[in-house]
C-alpha cells in the first residue's frame, strides 16, 4: 500500500510537470505564431495643405480616367509600344478583383464610384502571420493532448488503477500501453489516428479472447491479427516517419489505408498458411506445398517489385498490385489461390525446385494478363468504371487451370514482340474476337449476344483445344507466335457471322460441351493455317472462310443435335476439315456454282448424312469425296 501511495505521488509529479510543460509550450508557440502588423508607407502630406482638395486618391491614381492631370502625366504609362492605350482600366479592374476575390468584401461597382470596401480589409493585408500554415499545434491540442497523456499515464503506471483480473481491463491496459508513445500534443490528427489504430491491433492480438470464446478461433484470430500487425507495423512506421511537409494528412491516411489493405490480405492469408489444419492438410509435404504457392501469390499481390524494373514497369506493377488487391478483396483471391494450389499439388517437382520458379511463373502469367487491361479496358471494366474483378479472376483462373496439364508449353511459354505468356495472348485475341466495342460509359457487349458464361466457355474451349496440340508450340518457334492469331481468327469466324441461322448453330455448339473438340478439329486440320502470309490472307477473306464453315455446319446441324452427337469427339470432323484443307476443297466449295462444287457438295452431303445415321466414315472415304 505505501508503494501505491508513492506511485500516486510520482504520478502527480509527472502529471503536473507534463501539464506545466504543455502550458509553457502553448504560450511560447503563441508568441512564435503571433500576427504582426507591418507598416505601410507613410504618405507625403505637408501639414498646411488643403487635404480634401489636394490629397491624391489612390484609386484615381490607378483609374486614370477621372483626373485630367493624371491622364496627361501618365499617359505614356498606359500606352503600349505602338501607342495604343492599354492596361489602365485593366489594372484597376484587376486590382479590384484581387481585393474582392474570395475575401467576402462588399463591392459595388459602377462607373462613377468604382468600388466600396472596408478599410479594415486593406488593413488586414498588412497584418501578417508567421506562417501560411503554422507547424505548431493549437493551444487546445497542446493542453487537451497533455490531459489525455496524463490520463493514459495514470492507468498504465499506477497499480490498481485497472483491475488486473478482468479480461476487459487487461485489454484496456494493453491498448493504453500501445498508445503511450503517441504524441497527442504535437502529432497531426492522422499521426494520432495511426497510433491509436496500431494500439488497437496490438490489443486485439494479445487479447483475442475478448472477441471470441473458442480456442480455435482465438488461434486463428491471434495469428491473423499478429500477421496483420507485423505486416502493417513496418509500413506504418515508414509512413509515420515521413514529415508533415512530405505528406498531407489525407495522403498519409490514403497510404496507411493501402498498407492496411495489403496487411489484411497478407495477414489473413498467412494465418491460413500457418494453420494447415484449417485447410485440412496434415502432412508436412502438403504444408510445404501450400506455403510455397501461397507465399508466391502473396508476394505478387503485395507488389514485390523488381529493383531492376524501369519506371514504367514499376508503375505497371504498382497498378497491378492495386488491381490485384481489389480483386483479392472481392473473393477472387480464393479462386486464384485454388488454381495455384492445384498446379502446385499436381506438380510437386516445381515446388521442390524452389519457390522462386513458382513465383516467377505466377507473376508472369498474372502480370501479362493484367497487361491486357489497358488495351482491353472496356472488357474488364464494370459499369462503375473500375476493373471488373469477376471477369479478370475468371480469366486468370481459366489460364492457370488450363495450363496445368501442359504446364511448361502453355504457361511458361512467352512469345511475340511483347514477350508475354502465350496463353495470355490467346486470351486477349479471343476476347477481342468476341467483344464489340461498347458505347462510352456502357458495359462491354458480346457478339451474338453471348452471355459472360458463353465467353468464359469459349475461352476455356480454345485453351483446351490448344492443350491437345502442344506440338504447335513445341515444334516451331515461328508458329508459336501465330497461335494466338489463329485462335482469334477461328473465334471471330464462329461469332462474327451475322447470319441468324449461323448464330443459332454456334450457340448450340457453345452449349454442347463439344466446342473444344470442334475448335481442335478445325485448328489441327490446317484449315486455319499457321503460316503468316496465309493467315493474313485468310483473315482478310474471313467472310469466305466463315461461309465455308457455315456450309459444313449447315449439313451437320440439318437434323438438329443428332448429327452433332454422331460426330462424337469430332475426330471425324477433324479428318473432314483436314481433307478440305489438304485438297484446297474449301476453295472449291466457295467457288460459286461450278460443276465441281455441285459434285463436291453432293458427296459431302452424302457423307454427312451417313455420319448422322451413325455410319463409320474413314479417312479413305473422305479422301474419296475429294
Amino acid at each position, binding site marked *: 500500500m505505501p508503494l501505491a501511495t508513492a506511485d500516486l505521488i510520482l504520478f502527480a509529479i509527472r502529471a503536473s510537470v507534463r501539464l506545466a510543460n504543455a502550458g509553457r509550450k502553448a504560450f511560447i508557440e503563441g508568441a512564435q505564431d503571433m500576427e504582426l502588423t507591418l507598416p505601410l508607407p507613410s504618405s507625403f502630406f505637408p501639414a498646411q495643405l488643403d487635404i480634401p482638395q489636394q490629397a491624391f486618391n489612390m484609386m484615381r491614381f490607378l483609374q486614370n480616367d*477621372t483626373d485630367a492631370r493624371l491622364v496627361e502625366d501618365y499617359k505614356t*504609362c498606359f500606352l503600349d509600344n505602338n501607342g495604343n492605350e492599354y492596361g489602365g482600366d485593366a489594372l484597376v479592374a484587376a486590382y479590384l478583383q484581387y481585393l474582392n476575390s474570395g475575401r467576402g468584401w462588399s463591392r459595388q461597382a459602377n462607373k462613377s464610384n468604382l468600388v466600396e470596401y472596408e478599410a479594415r480589409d486593406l488593413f488586414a493585408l498588412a497584418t501578417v502571420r508567421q506562417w501560411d500554415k503554422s507547424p505548431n499545434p493549437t493551444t487546445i491540442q497542446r493542453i487537451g493532448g497533455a490531459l489525455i497523456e496524463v490520463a493514459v499515464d495514470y492507468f498504465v503506471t499506477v497499480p490498481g488503477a485497472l483491475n488486473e483480473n478482468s479480461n476487459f481491463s487487461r485489454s484496456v491496459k494493453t491498448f493504453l500501453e500501445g498508445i503511450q508513445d503517441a504524441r497527442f500534443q504535437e502529432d497531426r490528427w492522422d499521426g494520432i489516428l495511426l497510433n491509436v489504430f496500431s494500439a488497437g491491433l496490438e490489443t486485439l492480438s494479445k487479447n483475442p479472447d475478448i472477441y471470441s470464446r473458442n480456442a480455435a478461433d482465438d488461434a486463428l484470430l491471434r495469428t491473423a491479427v499478429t500477421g496483420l500487425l507485423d505486416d502493417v507495423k513496418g509500413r506504418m512506421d515508414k509512413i509515420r516517419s515521413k514529415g508533415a511537409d512530405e505528406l498531407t494528412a489525407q495522403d498519409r491516411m490514403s497510404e496507411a489505408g493501402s498498407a492496411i489493405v495489403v496487411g489484411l490480405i497478407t495477414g489473413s492469408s498467412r494465418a491460413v498458411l500457418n494453420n494447415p489444419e484449417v485447410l485440412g492438410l496434415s502432412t508436412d509435404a502438403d504444408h510445404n506445398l501450400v506455403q510455397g504457392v501461397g507465399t508466391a501469390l502473396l508476394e505478387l499481390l503485395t507488389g514485390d517489385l523488381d529493383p531492376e524494373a524501369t519506371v514504367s514497369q514499376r508503375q505497371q506493377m504498382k497498378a497491378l498490385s492495386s488491381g490485384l488487391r481489389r480483386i483479392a478483396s472481392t473473393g477472387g483471391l480464393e479462386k486464384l489461390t485454388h488454381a495455384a494450389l492445384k498446379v502446385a499439388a499436381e506438380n510437386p517437382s516445381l515446388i521442390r525446385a524452389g519457390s522462386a520458379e513458382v513465383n516467377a511463373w505466377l507473376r508472369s502469367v498474372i502480370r501479362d494478363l493484367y497487361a491486357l487491361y489497358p488495351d482491353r479496358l472496356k472488357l474488364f471494366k464494370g459499369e462503375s468504371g473500375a476493373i471488373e474483378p469477376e471477369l479478370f479472376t475468371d480469366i486468370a483462373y481459366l489460364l492457370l487451370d488450363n495450363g496445368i496439364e501442359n504446364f511448361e508449353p502453355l504457361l511458361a511459354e512467352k512469345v511475340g514482340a511483347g514477350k508475354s505468356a502465350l496463353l495470355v495472348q490467346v486470351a486477349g485475341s479471343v476476347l477481342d474476337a468476341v467483344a464489340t466495342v461498347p458505347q462510352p460509359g456502357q458495359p462491354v457487349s458480346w457478339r451474338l449476344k453471348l452471355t459472360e458464361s458463353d465467353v468464359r466457355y469459349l475461352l476455356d474451349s480454345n485453351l483446351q483445344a490448344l492443350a491437345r496440340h502442344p506440338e504447335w508450340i513445341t515444334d516451331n518457334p515461328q508458329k508459336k507466335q501465330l497461335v494466338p492469331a489463329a485462335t482469334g481468327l477461328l473465334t471471330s469466324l464462329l461469332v462474327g457471322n451475322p447470319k441468324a441461322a449461323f448464330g443459332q448453330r454456334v450457340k448450340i455448339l457453345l452449349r454442347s460441351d463439344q466446342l473444344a473438340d470442334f475448335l481442335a478439329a478445325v485448328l489441327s486440320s490446317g484449315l486455319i493455317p499457321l503460316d503468316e502470309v496465309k493467315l493474313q490472307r485468310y483473315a482478310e477473306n474471313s467472310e469466305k472462310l466463315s461461309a465455308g464453315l457455315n456450309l459444313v455446319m449447315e449439313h451437320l446441324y440439318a437434323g438438329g443435335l443428332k448429327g452433332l452427337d454422331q460426330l462424337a469427339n469430332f475426330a471425324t470432323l477433324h479428318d473432314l476439315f483436314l481433307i478440305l484443307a489438304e485438297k484446297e476443297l474449301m476453295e472449291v466449295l466457295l467457288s460459286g456454282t461450278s460443276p465441281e462444287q455441285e459434285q463436291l457438295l453432293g458427296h459431302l452431303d452424302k457423307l454427312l448424312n451417313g455420319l448422322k445415321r451413325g455410319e463409320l466414315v474413314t479417312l479413305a472415304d473422305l479422301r474419296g469425296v475429294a
Partner: protein
Amino acid sequence: MKTRHSQSRPAVLGGSLLLLILFLSGCVTTTVEHASTLKRLQDDYNSATERANREALHFAGLDETGTLQDGNLQGNDGNPRVGIGIPEVYNDLWLDYSAIAAEARQLNAGSRDALLRDQLYVNSLVLELLARKQKALYEGMMLSVEGPKNDSDEEDQAGYETPADIANLLKRTKTELADLDGAAPIHPRNYFVLQAMEPLVKYDNALILAIRAYYNGSFAARDMPAVKPLVEQIAEAESDLRGISSQDNFKQIRGYVFLTRILMLNNAHYMIKEVAELPSDTEERKTFIGANFPKYKAAYDVLAADYRLAANQELLGDLKDSNLISRPY
C-alpha cells in the same frame, strides 16, 4: 486498514498535486517571462502600427469610416479633415514606437539566451528593427516639419536615429543571425521582413527628405534637381520590393507587398504633382515628367502584370471552385 487507506489516498494525491501545481506555476511564470514581454511588445507594436497604417491609407484616399471616397476625405465627425495636427500625430506614434523600441532592445540584450532557446530571438530582433525603423521615420518627419532642435535639446537628440542608422542596424542583425548558424531559425515572415526592411527604410529616407524639401521651399520653387532624386529613390524602393515579392512568399505577404508598392508609387506621383504644379505646356514640367516616364512605365508594367496575374489567378480559382467557369477567359 483498507478503508483508511482508501480515504487517505485521494487526500495525499490532492495535496501533492496542489503543492506541485503551485510550485510549477511559479517556475513556469518565471521561465516564460521573456515570451510574455515579447507578446506584450508585439501587441503594443501592432496597435501603434494599425494607427500609422490607418493614417497612411487615409491620405491615400480612404476615410476612417472605411469607405473609399472620391477625393473627399472626412474625419470621424463627418467634417473634412483640413489642417489636422500632423506633428501631433507624428508625436503620438513616435512616443509609442520609442517605448517599444527601447524595451525590445532591452529584452534582446537581457534575455537573449532564453529567447534563443525558445526560438523567439528572431521574432524579437525583427520587432526591435521594425519599432526602431518607425521611430526613426517619425523622428525624421517631425524634424522635417518642425525644423532641427535647438542646442538645449541636445540630450534628446542623442537618442535619435535616422533611416541610415536603421540600415546599419539591419546589416548588424543579419550578420549576427548568420553567425548563429542555424541556432536561431528564421521563420517565413521574419525572413520576409529582414529582406523587405531595406527598401522600406530607403522609402522612409526619401519621404523624410521630401517633407524637408517641402518645408525648405523646394517644391514651391519647383526645384527639380532637389526633388527628382527623391522621387527616384522611391521608385528604387518600389523596384527592390518588387524583387522580394517575386520570391516564394505566402499569400498574405504578397497582399502586403502589392499594397505597399501601390502606396509608394502613389506618393511618388503626389510629389511629382506638387513640384510640377505648372501650366501643362511649360517646358520645365515636360522635361521633369518626361525624364521619369520610362522608369514609371517599367514599374507600372510590372505592377500591372502582377495585379492581373494575382487577381486573375485568385478570381478564376474562386470561380472554378464555384463551378461558374470551366476555363480561364
